[in-house]
């Protein structure tokens, strides 16, 4: 069953001059942990705001848990949990005060739903008298998640919950999302981090207001097989330029210590690479075939689009 349905949603700003979403359609299944993956400015926040009834799309239809985002906005506001990308709790209220306040806003108490937030809350409970504005990035996000969960929402919308959070807290945060999923809560989460894609059931890649692909991570990877190699030598910067100048190169990008090189499928494209680089004066050359990860795939999809 589909919990979130998005049909041909288009959204523009500044009287139509800035396009945020361009004819976007997909569905999120009930109980799914769905990732919306894309760079800053791709349109993720606009989509979240439309689904949480904060914005009205220019055209298209969307529904959450069977309720239309425009007509039934009041119903949706009762059953969803929303965590905006920007930390939006009261900075001059303590952890405890924020949580109690939002529990009251949603017509419940912390005690009533304590079980749901217990695992997260125990981590920040030692600091419960501290003002929210003085918390670290990770603790802020945990508190925000508690506040978004306190009324046991059916659908949880998390807009970049791990941006600006340290790697350990990021890992913990995703573990919590996994456990919330087990409780049957549908979760839609956006992130600019590609490595978080493998933690989602399904992902949608979004770029420049358009959806590039929607599938499981494996599905996306297997659909986008590439002739990919990791190359390095002693002169990395020169190497990047030379690889890009190589006639059989489709694309080449720096990936940490290596360059990821995508070659066309011609028979000689790999064979003649080594002599080419030697002729250019490179030493200690290593060329290894690799299978593309999500980042490589994302770059390829962006180029294809």
């Amino acid at each position, binding site marked *: 069953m589909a919990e979130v349905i998005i049909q041909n949603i288009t959204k523009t700003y500044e009287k139509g001059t800035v396009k945020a979403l361009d004819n976007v359609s997909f569905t999120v299944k009930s109980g799914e942990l769905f990732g919306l993956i894309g760079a800053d400015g791709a349109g993720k926040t606009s989509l979240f705001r439309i689904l949480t*009834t904060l914005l009205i799309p220019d055209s298209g239809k969307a529904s959450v848990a069977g309720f239309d985002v425009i007509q039934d906005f009041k119903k949706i*506001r009762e059953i969803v949990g929303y965590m*905006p990308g920007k930390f939006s709790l009261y900075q*001059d209220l303590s952890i405890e005060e924020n949580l109690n306040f939002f529990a009251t*806003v949603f017509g419940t108490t912390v005690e009533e739903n304590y079980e749901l937030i217990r695992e997260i809350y125990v981590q920040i409970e030692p600091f419960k008298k501290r003002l929210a504005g003085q918390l670290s990035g990770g603790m802020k996000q945990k508190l925000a998640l508690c*506040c978004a969960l306190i009324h046991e929402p059916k659908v949880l919308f998390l807009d970049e919950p791990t941006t600006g959070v340290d790697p350990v807290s990021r890992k913990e945060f995703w573990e919590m999302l996994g456990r919330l999923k087990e409780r049957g809560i549908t979760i839609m989460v956006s992130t600019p981090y590609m490595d978080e894609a493998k933690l989602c059931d399904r992902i949608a890649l979004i770029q420049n207001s358009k959806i590039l692909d929607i599938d499981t991570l494996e599905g996306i990877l297997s659909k986008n097989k590439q002739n990919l190699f990791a190359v390095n030598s002693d002169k990395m910067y020169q190497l990047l330029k030379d690889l890009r100048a190589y006639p059989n190169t489709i694309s080449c990008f720096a990936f940490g210590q290596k360059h990821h090189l995508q070659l066309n499928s011609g028979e000689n494209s790999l064979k003649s690479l080594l002599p080419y680089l030697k002729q250019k004066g490179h030493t200690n050359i290593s060329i290894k075939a690799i299978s593309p990860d999500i980042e490589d795939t994302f770059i390829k999809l962006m180029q294809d689009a």
Partner: protein
Amino acid sequence: MKLFFAFIRKEFWHVLRDTRSLIILLGLPVMMMLLFGFALSNEVKNSNIGILDLSHDESTIQLADRFDQSRYFSVTQKLKRESEIAEAFRKNELRMVVIFPPNFQENISHNKQAQIRFIGDATDPNTSNIMINYATAIIRDYQNEILGEQKLPYRIELESSMLYNPKLSSAFNFVPGVMTLILMLLGAMMTSVSIVKEKEKGTMEILLVSPMRPIMVVITKAIPYLLLCFVDVLLILLLAYTVLDMPMRGNIGLLLAESILFIFTTLSLGLLISNLVDTQQVAMFISLVGLLMPALIFSGFMFPLENMPLPMQVISNIVPTKWFYSIVSTIMVKGLGFEYVWKQTLILVGMTLFYLTIAMKKFKIRLE
């Protein structure tokens, strides 16, 4: 109801934890009252004057002494010759000079006629006018004393009385004025800024995505400010009564009730502003420039409305401070009852309802 109190408690936390705005809320009225009471005054008190006595006889010495004794003047310079006058004014040492021509007493007793000349520094026309009036009064008193000994065929006696404020204390003017300005400024600015803050900080985004009716956040915002503004009214009245010796002539209950009405007016104006703008800066700017200036100009507290050109007098009618200032001075200074302020009250009620209706209509249930 529980939700209502949760919101109010949260608002009090916001206000009480923000020392800066708390200082403004409670310190500003005290500061303004003390400033107007003791530092900024257009009353004439112990003004420096010079005397050029060219006859130096019994009468002129007596008169010069009277000037010095008066609480309005103090004689700081005895000038020797006329040429010194211009220099003293240029150096800003004197506000006024009194000149007794030669043979003053002789002229009175023999010619039955003598002259005195006042020269005032009219850089500030109001003050110099007031000073000349006081000086004239001193001379008139003296003249009456001499005349008292003689019989004249007829004479017109002048008797003026200053109603409501015989001592011409400026407190009678500025206390209602300060009250009006403070309520206008704090009521409208603080509420508008605090609501816009919710938008700017993003908390409104979360509150909108909740079952709560958004109007709740707006109404509960106003309540702590209503209370704080009311405290300000009490503070101002207390200071006026104790420190500035201003009597409370009318019904205090009526005055407080009217104040609460005016606080509602300013709060609803604040709500209206907050619904129209998106940043605290703009809210602050509109409150200061768009409200404080007209409030100052059109309340009748600093500049008499009757002297303004007709278009400005017409505009003054839509400025709520004009009506509240009139209510406060009618009740406090003239000691009159509701039958004299019902018209102004009705206008304020109308304005409040008008602002509230627009504010509610303009309230955004979404982000744009």
